[in-house]
Each structure stands twice: as structure tokens, then as C-alpha cells.
């Protein structure tokens, strides 16, 4: 074997071009890493917002809870703004795998919040509008995380929106079971009806293209069954006693307890 001296020298055009490739590649990988990190934060914070919203059934004032959740979502949007800034002038699909989990969890949280405010299914347009960030003139002095930046928008691919919505129905199911046990007579039926709508919506298109969609469709179907079973139980249990007697039971129960009657959610 010949002892061959490597031909590398910095003046070689090949080396020069690979130096360019190196910096391009490092730039891309670094950006990807930064996006992954922000996305993890988005996921955690969104999850916490969802948990917070679930507290509306535990006697705390609903408006307060939803207001607090809204603040949490505003904080999440600050992180999403960072993502949008990183993606300025980029092809967002190049980095989608980095921030998709966070974005989906945010959509789940925001649609849950929206629904609990009584506004039904949040539209993609609405989600999109929330992610248009106007330019800021001065650096935010408080935490320095969002210094002055131009107007940016985080574009939400429809498929990410839909995957977030699918997850959102899981939270609806949880809300339904909770509301059954807290004695709400109407909300479970409302939720059941809404979930059927979403289910039929999901049934109306082919999931052939997306493994993720068909997996989530499966979960959605199970959630719907749980909700239908809960409504069934409500119905069946409620039938052993005439309606007016039932009302009596409720009102007596109400007065015996704190006397405060919880509002419906929608």
C-alpha cells in the first residue's frame, strides 16, 4: 500500500466549497436543535394549560380558571413567536419535525380553551390569527426572551392543526367523565353531540396518507365510545325516578351544599 499524502490544502476549490457546505450544515443543525428545545418548552407549558383548564370542574370559578389558562397560553405564544423568528425566510417544512410536537400540543390546548369558553370548535383561521406576531419596537425588558423583532407569522400547516384537534377530543372525553361525576346533567350530552360532530368530520376524509391521522382516529373512536357510554349511564340511571323528583333531589342537594350553582360551560 502506498503511503499517499493527503491532498488537502486550503486553497483547493474542493476544500473551499466544503467549508461553505460545513457552515450551511452547521447552521441548519443548530437551528434544528434550537427549535427542538423551544418545542419541548411549548409542549410542557401547553400541557400545564390543559391541566389548568380541567380544574374548572373542581369548584373553582370557571371564569377565573379560563382567564388564568389564557395567560398561560399567551406565555406559550411568546415561545411560538421565537419559533416563528427562527423560521423567518425559511421553508418551514424543512424544520417541521423539530417543532411539530410542541405546535400540536399548543393547538390541543388552545382548542380546549376555546371550546370551554363556549365558542365551539376553534377554526384554523383563528389559530392562525393568534400566531401573527406584530413587530415590537423595544426589547421586552422583563425576561429578555423576546427582544425587539419584526412582524412574523408562524404558519400552521392544516395537517398539524387537525392532529392537534384530534388530541383535543381526548381532553373533551376526560372533561365529560368528570362532569358526569360532578352531577352535571347537560354537559355530557352536549359534549357527546360535539364529539360526534368531530368524529363524523374525521370519518369524512381518507386517512390513507397519514399514519398519524389514522392512529389518532382510532383514539378518537374510543373516546367517543367512552362519552356515549357515560351518557348512556346518565340516561339509564336517571330513568328510575320521575323527572320532577329528580329536580327535587338536585335542588335539595344544592341547598345542602355550598348553595352555589355551577354554570354550564358552554
Amino acid at each position, binding site marked *: 500500500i502506498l503511503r499517499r499524502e493527503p491532498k488537502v490544502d486550503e486553497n483547493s476549490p474542493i*476544500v473551499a466549497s466544503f*467549508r461553505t457546505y460545513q457552515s450551511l450544515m452547521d447552521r441548519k443543525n443548530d437551528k434544528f436543535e434550537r427549535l427542538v428545545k423551544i418545542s419541548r418548552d411549548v409542549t410542557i407549558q401547553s400541557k400545564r394549560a390543559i391541566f389548568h383548564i380541567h380544574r374548572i370542574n373542581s369548584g373553582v370559578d370557571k371564569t377565573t380558571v379560563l382567564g388564568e389558562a389564557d395567560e398561560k397560553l399567551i406565555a406559550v405564544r411568546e415561545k411560538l413567536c421565537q419559533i416563528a423568528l427562527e423560521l423567518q425566510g425559511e*421553508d418551514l417544512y424543512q424544520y417541521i419535525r423539530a417543532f411539530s410536537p410542541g405546535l400540536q400540543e399548543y393547538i390541543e390546548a388552545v382548542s380546549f380553551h376555546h371550546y370551554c369558553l363556549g365558542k365551539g*370548535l376553534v*377554526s384554523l383561521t383563528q389559530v392562525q390569527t393568534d400566531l401573527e406576531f406584530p413587530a415590537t419596537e423595544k426589547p421586552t425588558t422583563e425576561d429578555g426572551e423576546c427582544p425587539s423583532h419584526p412582524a412574523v407569522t408562524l404558519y400552521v400547516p*392544516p395537517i398539524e392543526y387537525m392532529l392537534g384537534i384530534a388530541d383535543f377530543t381526548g381532553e373533551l372525553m376526560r372533561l365529560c367523565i368528570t362532569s358526569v361525576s360532578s352531577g352535571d346533567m347537560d354537559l355530557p350530552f352536549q359534549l357527546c353531540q360535539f364529539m360526534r*360532530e368531530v368524529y363524523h*368530520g*374525521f370519518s369524512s376524509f381518507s386517512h390513507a396518507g397519514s399514519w398519524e391521522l389514522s392512529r389518532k382516529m382510532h383514539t378518537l373512536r374510543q373516546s367517543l365510545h367512552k362519552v356515549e357510554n357515560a351518557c348512556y349511564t346518565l340516561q339509564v340511571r336517571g330513568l328510575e325516578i320521575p323527572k320532577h323528583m329528580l329536580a327535587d333531589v338536585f335542588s335539595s342537594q344544592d341547598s345542602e351544599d355550598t348553595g352555589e350553582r355551577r354554570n354550564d360551560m358552554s
Partner: protein
Amino acid sequence: MASTSTQETFSKFQEYLTKDQDIREEIRVSVREIEQTAREILTVLQGVHQPTGCKDTVSICKRSREMFVNIRRQYKELAAKLPAEQYYRFHDHWRFANQRCVFLAAFLVYLESDKLITREEAAELLGVQQRREDGFHIDLDDFLMGLLQLANEMSRLAVNSVTAGDYSRPTKIANFVAELDAGFRLLNLKNDALRKRFDGLKYDVKKIEEVVYDVTIRGLNPPPAQKPEAQTEEQ
């Protein structure tokens, strides 16, 4: 049954999906055509591995260069089907075709000039944009994958050149591939497909060096002083 707004949401999404599938279908058709042309070009270029390949290099290059006209037209058609700034949304559809076409372009350029193709030359030869910002381009990873395919072909060429009686080519190839290898070593690769393919480059380099060794110990390669001339003769 469903409230109007919910229905609207889903019917809009249905529209989106249908459109998406239509685009993908059109892209698939275009990519299949590109692959077909690529296979044809490859068949022509494979001629250089034949015993008579050395002498025919010029004509082989000429014929395949002409065939790139089709590739350019097909890439233009493909690019036209693409929504703006959504290259990576459909990346998987043309990833392999692009790598293959870069390889073919790089192979052609090497055969013509003993030089490594630049991203600019590749873009020009394939009729695509040089920069992502300008539209349909070749992703850097795919470009590099194409170059690694070239290195593999080079090791075959070194072997077959000797079989065909051309003892000077292996040395030139060795120098070329060593430079390529040095270039790749500048990169910080992740544990991905590119890294795996790059690991294979070492074996190509090794094979070529072995050919050079075989030629050298038998005194078959031209004296080093004459190397520049030898190159001139062949081109």
C-alpha cells in the same frame, strides 16, 4: 347533524387534503419521468466501464450531456407543480431522484474535466435553482449524497480502467477522491443516512488506493514527472 362551523372546518380540510393528494400525484408522475431519463443517462455513462470505454469517453459524455436537456425540461415541469416555499413538504418524493441526478451530473463533469462538480454547475445542468430562496433547488444533503455515489462509481472506474489497459487513470482518480474525502471530513455529520454513506466512502478510497498500489508495484503507471502530459493525452 354537525354545526355549520364544525362542518365548514372539516370540509375545508377535506379540500386541502384533496388538493394535497392531487399535487402529490402530479409530483409522482414528474419524478417517475425524471427517474426514467436518469436511468437512460446512466446506461449511456456506464459505457465508460467497458473495455473500449476509455477511448469512447468523449462521445459518451457528449451523448449524455445532450440527454440532460430532458432532465432540465422535466425538472422545470416538476418545479411548476410546486406551491411556493413548500419544497420540503414534498421532499421525500424527489429525494432519491435528486441524489441520482446529482450523481449523474457529477459523473459527467468528472469524465469531461476531471473536476468536482460545484453546486452551481449541478443546478445549471439539472435546470434547477441554486438557492432555496429562489425555488426548486437541490437540498445540500442530497447534493452530498450524489457526490458519495460518485466516489463509489470512481472506485469501479479505477478497476475497469486498469482492465481496459489505462494505467494512468487510477492515480488521477485517487487524487480526486482523496480530496473529496478530505472535504467530507470537514463536515459535522449527524448519525443519519449521510453519515452512513460517508462511512462507505472510506472503502472506496481504500479500493482505489489498492488499484494504484497494484499498478505501481508492477511499474505500470507512467512516471510521475509525465503525469500532466498523460492527462492531456486522454482528454
